[in-house]
């Protein structure tokens, strides 16, 4: 008991010192490197794409860094209490874009809300990523690393389905998958029975297959507008299976991305020298296909550096998870690492034709403030886990 009190005292006394010394410096440096890399890429994209604005992105970075610092100071453990409240608020926010007047549509996804009176649009799905991770971690940490009750396991899965289905309504399958995968990783990490998880995967695979097969029937009954899988999603999947099938139609984007990446070579074509991106062959060169732009400009050196930085970010986050004593903290770190891992693998993978095309931004690099702020807040949460752990010695 005395030891316990001493360590608490120690923790409180050292809080200020911890703010500087307590953070994970390598993680911060990797983050800053990624953000800097992203700004360079957005700058080069802005040379030829009028939509991409470096100042706007820089503002997003600044807001994100401030939030990172604030979140890092905040005791993440108090987030566990608020997770439920945040989760409910987030779910409401995700419903808002569906209400006319508040919504702002982009690329067929009504995932943005317009904040009244100020010219600001907010992508609610971006916030849903960390909040869902917090919620799932808070719930799953109750079971101490062993989900031994099937009811508890089903409950976890059920809670996860709520934000996933809400995002599907927008409809934003990409972000929905990020949330699903991150949540699933948290659940798996919480220690359910292997057979349950395998059964769940089997059910999901069967469900997806059933939906795909029945899609054409559903389309003919209610029309593509209202069916679960839109034509463009189906096309993306078909193109993924055979990318050269129709290079001027659905396969065009993928084909152009592959050409952009492949033609980058060892050292790339340099800033502004990327013909695929700057002459408009590569679509969404500043957002979804930003990796193809980066690869074309900086070549294998640049793209593998980025992959290395991302791997470092995730491994450093996992190190924080390992060092953290509490299950909640570990699960939060794992969940956040999972959101990053999935987004990065999916986004880069689609540029390399390893994954089907979905509209997922590349963390820290893609143009867009909502994503940038959300990703930096995630880093802040991980740093909070690091700063609020009790350091031995």
């Amino acid at each position, binding site marked *: 008991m005395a*030891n*316990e009190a001493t*360590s608490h005292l120690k923790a409180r006394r050292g809080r200020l010192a911890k703010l500087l010394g307590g953070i994970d410096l390598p993680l911060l440096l990797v983050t800053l490197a990624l953000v800097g890399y992203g700004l360079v890429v957005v700058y080069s994209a802005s040379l030829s794409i009028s939509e991409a604005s470096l100042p706007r992105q820089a503002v997003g970075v600044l807001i994100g860094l401030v939030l990172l610092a604030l979140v890092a100071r905040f005791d993440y*453990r*108090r987030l566990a*209490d608020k997770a439920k*409240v945040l989760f409910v608020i987030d779910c409401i926010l995700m419903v808002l874009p569906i209400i006319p007047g508040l919504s702002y549509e982009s690329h067929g996804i009504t995932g943005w809300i317009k904040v009244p009176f100020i010219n600001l649009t907010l992508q609610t799905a971006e916030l849903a990523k960390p909040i869902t991770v917090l919620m799932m971690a*808070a*719930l799953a*940490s*109750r079971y*101490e*690393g*062993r989900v*031994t*009750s099937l009811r508890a396991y089903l409950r976890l899965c059920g809670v996860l389905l709520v934000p996933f289905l809400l995002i599907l309504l927008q409809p934003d399958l990409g972000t929905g998958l990020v949330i699903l995968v991150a949540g699933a*990783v948290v659940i*798996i*990490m919480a220690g*359910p029975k*292997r057979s349950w*998880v*395998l059964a769940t*995967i089997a059910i999901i695979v069967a469900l997806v297959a059933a939906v795909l097969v029945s899609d054409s029937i559903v389309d003919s009954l209610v029309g593509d507008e209202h069916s679960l899988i839109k034509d463009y999603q189906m096309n993306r999947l078909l193109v993924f*299976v055979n990318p050269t099938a129709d290079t001027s139609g659905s396969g065009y984007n993928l084909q152009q991305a592959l*050409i952009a*990446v*492949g*033609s*980058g*070579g*060892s050292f790339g074509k340099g800033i502004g020298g990327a*013909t*695929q991106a700057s*002459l*408009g062959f590569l679509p969404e060169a500043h957002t979804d296909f930003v990796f193809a732009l980066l*690869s074309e400009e900086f*070549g*294998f050196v640049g793209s*593998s550096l980025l992959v290395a930085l*991302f791997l470092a970010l*995730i*491994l450093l986050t*996992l190190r924080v998870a*390992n060092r953290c*004593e*509490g*299950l*909640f*903290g*570990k699960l939060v770190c*794992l969940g956040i*690492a999972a959101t990053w*891992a999935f987004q990065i*693998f999916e986004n*880069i993978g689609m540029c*390399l034709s*390893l*994954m089907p095309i979905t509209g997922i931004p590349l963390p820290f690099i893609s143009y867009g403030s909502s994503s940038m702020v959300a990703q930096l807040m995630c880093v802040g949460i991980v740093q909070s886990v690091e700063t609020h752990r*009790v350091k031995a010695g």
Partner: protein
Amino acid sequence: MLRVCIIVLLIAAIVALVVLIARRVPPSTPQGMRVGDGLHVGRHAPARSRYSVRLDSTLPGRRGARLASLPRPSGQSVGADPSLSHTRFSIPGARRLGRRAGGEAGGAGTGEVDMRSRVLAFGAVVSALFGTLLARLWGMQLISNDSYEAQAEANLTREVSIKAPRGQILDRNGEVLVGNRSSMALVAESSVAEDTRVVRRISNLLGMPYVAVRRAIQSSSEGAQSKRTIMFDVPERAVAYVVEHSEQFPGVEVESQWVRSYPNGTLACHLLGYTSEASDIASLNENSDQSGITYVLGDRVGVSGIEAQYESILQGVRGTRIVHVDANGDVTGIVSEIPAERGSDIRLTIDLGAQRAAEHAIQSGMAASEALKYAATGGAVVALDCRTGEVLAMASYPNYNPTAFINGISSDLWSQLQAEDAHTPLLNRAINGQYPPASTVKPITTLAGLEHGVCTTSSTYNCTGWWTGLGEEYGKWCWLTTGHGNITLSYGIALSCDVVFYEIAKALYYSDEPESLQEMFRRWGLGSATGVDLPGESSGRVPDAQWKWNWFTWSDDQSRAWQPGDTVNIAIGQGDMLATPMQLAYVYSGIARNGTQMRPHLLKEVLSSQTGEAIAQGRQEVAANVTIDQANLDFVHAAMELVLSSSVGMNVYFDNIPVTVGGKSGTAEASDDAANPHAWFVAVAPMEDPQYVVCSFVEHGGGGGDITTSMCSEVLAYFYGTEAPDYIAINQQRGVEQNTGAGVGA
């Protein structure tokens, strides 16, 4: 297939993650090995005891035992889990859980060891996935880089084909008959047809009907990929508007294109022909093996006349321009260019002046015929140099304006040209107009008679105006119904007395060779095409027993059988006999040159478009050497001179010609219009050493001789640099003579 494998592998990776991480289910072990067990039991209310029991039975006994054996101070354990102690879960029971977890060591400790391996497994899976990305990047950017770079380069560059202007068509003196000029054309991509606003704007701008613009854009004649020409020769104002307001005209461009120019308007339109967009490039390319030209959709090809005949010479070689483009296809720069090569020029044997004279002659002749109340629905003039076979003039009327075909002829104009009262302006009457040659064949009938001995140069005949040589019921009129009285063979030709030739024909029919007359006609080239270098020449017709039998299949055997009257009819160029003006000019060129028939031709030289030097010559060949007794030929030559010198006032026509002219007239009964017979005259000059043969023809032009002779005279006047005859004066004079019934006759 590869990608399906990737999907399967990814699912496998997820399963592997689960297998690595998810809690193993060990065999049942004795309970109570862990402090934390109590927690579980306690947490789950008695109502859920079913789960509790099962839960306990599935505890990892092995791991639990290992953990329990770990020497760990309980104090540290408590301290190590501040998260739980500080957490205030709002979920019922969570606070309790936190407190208990904080209070009871072991749970967290268990978690830590448990979690470390899970985190490591997760890290391993992520590392593996990222390794896949790196491997793929390695493959794409370092190994397959060349292929992707080539694709990026292919994206950037476009090969633009440059249309080549066609070769020019010149007359024998180098005057341009068909040239080229550049025209500002409005072109559009095929998709523009779907954009009603753009189509509407173009329609307003050009003053073209909306549907016409739409049809022009949709027209598939230029191929699916190429841009469609909406209009050539777009007014400057419209060009400026489109260029300045390009945003209002997406997919629409102004392009400079080469089009044919006709400096002399309608002159020689039939023989020059016109071009149109190639529709069947497959067969074109099959036939152009020798020329080495590859046609693409949108190329203009000659479809009639010289344009079609010498397509492979006139067609240019497309150039190629490599340009840089952006994703919108906008050209950002030119990389390289192989310039287009204009097709070779063609120098024709046609003399522009003679052609003008010939066309003027037809129009004057037709006007004169009309003044005499004849229908005069068309006309033709062919002038040959009988020494070489060169076609000096070839005219046909009515004509058309070849400019109308530059942008594909409009359907309105097309139906206008096809209308009955237009009298087939597209028909080249010189080579495709087939008419009974009438009295113009009488010299050949004479030669047949002389050669087969049924008459001699001194034979005489008696013409009463009504001939009953085949019996009273088959009696036939001479054109001069009052009769010529006693008449010699040479005057028979000169005055064109029909009875003389009825007699010869009857004698030939009843000779050993009943078809010797047809044989003689054919010997001079009647009944077959002359082989002039123009496409689709008609061959005329020399009827015989075989032909008649096969032709009148619907008639009874008696009517199908050849009758002596049939031979009599063709002896004066009537019956079913047909010839073209070109054929008659060719026949007379052979007669004039004592049997040596030169192949009529229009191509004089092919000139290189680069140097202007002649690279090929037109073929000057003897088509046939007709073997005829020279004395008989001389007799016919004399008779041809006599035609003009003997007849009343006939010589007035050639008063203006400084050399002796011979010739023969013809009045052909028109089966479709008995009141308006066709008029022929074939003139040869000079008779001493014939050089020019001019054949004039007026369709439904009335009495043969007077007007057509004037027409020949006008063309000859050009060759001899003298004044053209005064049609009106002659007309008035001849009109009076016609009233007295002293015409030249058939």
